[in-house]
């Protein structure tokens, strides 16, 4: 095996086919970036979901002087007795894991903390605007929401019962939709990339049919004849992948991480997650280019 000779042949092939090679590199770069973005999205959603998994609760808001709902207007703010009754009822239910009472002062403190990066928004809200509430943790959030909610809804002093999951569900739906869109576009582009690899290799084989003809004639092994083409595809794939690595780093640090500020999740993906996605993208890129080149060559460079 003469490495220098093979490298020289690859260089000749890539240069003669420059426009196709450039097109191939660009398509591979974009499709791998989109695929990687989709995977980063998946990881982001998973990380956010597991972060929230332990915190999801039912919030039972109590009537205050400011409440606007009909029943609160009729009955006025919740009294201490009503509060104790609700507390007792919740604690007695077998589905409930824990009950925490959050006073208006505590609720306001938490609100100020969560939106600390948005002071102008905080300044429009004052203590008393946010009602006091019971934060209820369920043993089994999937099944137990219904019975607990019906038990307290309509009790005197209760303003509204809110399932935190339903708020998050909307957010997940949004993220999930974006992720699906990105992955679908990435898959379509990967198909385009596959076809481009096949075409590029075919063109390359056609451009060098004199060389390959002579190689066959003088008894070069199939492996030796095909290797330059195979490596040509793989090298183009690797260059595309390198570009996609740059794009993925940009996507993570400029977009996904800044997105966090607006949602106050504080779940930033680690560098390890990024490396994992990038390595996966490389495997996809190399495998796609290599396998397509190989299959194309089997058809066009038959002995």
């Amino acid at each position: 095996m003469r490495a220098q000779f093979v490298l020289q042949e690859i260089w000749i092939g890539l240069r003669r086919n420059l426009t196709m090679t450039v097109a191939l590199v660009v398509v591979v770069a974009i499709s791998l970036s989109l695929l990687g973005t989709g995977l980063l999205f998946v990881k982001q959603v998973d990380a956010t979901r597991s972060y929230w998994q332990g915190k999801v609760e039912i919030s039972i808001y109590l009537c205050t002087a400011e409440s606007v709902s009909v029943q609160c207007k009729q009955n006025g703010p919740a009294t201490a007795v009503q509060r104790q009754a609700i507390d007792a009822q919740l604690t007695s239910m077998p589905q409930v894991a824990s009950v925490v009472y959050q006073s208006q002062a505590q609720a306001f403190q938490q609100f100020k903390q969560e939106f600390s990066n948005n002071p102008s928004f905080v300044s429009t809200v004052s203590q008393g605007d946010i009602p006091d509430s019971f934060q209820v943790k369920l043993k089994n959030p999937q099944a137990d929401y219904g019975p607990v909610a019906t038990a307290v809804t309509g009790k005197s002093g209760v303003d509204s019962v809110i399932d935190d999951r339903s708020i998050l569900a909307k957010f997940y739906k949004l993220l999930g939709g974006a992720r699906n869109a990105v992955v679908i576009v990435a898959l379509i582009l990967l198909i385009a990339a596959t076809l481009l690899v096949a075409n590029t290799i075919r063109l390359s084989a056609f451009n060098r049919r004199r060389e390959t003809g002579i190689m066959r004639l003088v008894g070069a092994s199939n492996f030796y004849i095909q290797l330059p083409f195979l490596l040509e595809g793989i090298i183009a794939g690797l260059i595309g992948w390198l570009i996609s690595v740059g794009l993925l780093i940009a996507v993570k640090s400029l977009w996904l991480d800044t997105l966090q500020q607006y949602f106050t999740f504080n779940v930033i993906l680690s560098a390890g997650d990024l490396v994992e996605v990038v390595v996966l993208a490389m495997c996809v890129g190399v495998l796609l280019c290599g396998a397509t080149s190989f299959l194309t060559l089997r058809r066009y460079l038959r002995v």
Partner: protein
Amino acid sequence: MINFDNVTKAYPSQSRPALENVTISVDKGEFVFLVGPSGSGKSTFLRLVLKEERPTDGHIRVSGRDLARLSNWRVPMLRRRIGCVFQDFRLLPSKNVYQNVAFALEVIGKPRRFIRKVVPEVIDLVGLEGKHDRLPDELSGGEQQRVAMARAFVNRPMILLADEPTGNIDPATSIGIMKVLDRINRTGTTVVMATHDAAIVDSMRKRVIELEYGKVVRDQSRGVYGQAY
């Protein structure tokens, strides 16, 4: 060295077989002319020796090996022992004389030291000393054919197949080409040359096999091109 035993080759698109019941035996070191009109099966004969085609019927043995039993991945090994020269030279236009000859060794993975030693020797043998750096465009037809012969011979094949090597070359230059082929033959290499060139065949006085419509109609040692009755 080359044994055809009752070989028939039919192409699916043609009604008449290209070769029909051909039995030929060529010994080691022989020089054989393969003559006959176009379409008589000369090229098919050469392609069968290289295993570029498979016979429809019959057996072919090349240097003792049954080609039918030669597996596909061993075909390159067979071809390394057979050199080929064509009417249209088939040189690589972007490579110079030296690179064209060296290419044949590079692609079968010979070490560079070996290539540096052997290639100049063969270029000298075909009479192109001092023209290593010329591109094919800068050479005459005869010189290009010499490069092709150097490339065919550089790996010291046992058999050299020549398909009308003088077809694109004027008669005076052809004599030079034939001298090179004769020189190659004298090293012990079996030479099979398909040709239309009556003058060359007559002057060489070697064995002549004549094909017509895919059949051997004459096999004569020290023969001439035309019918000798």
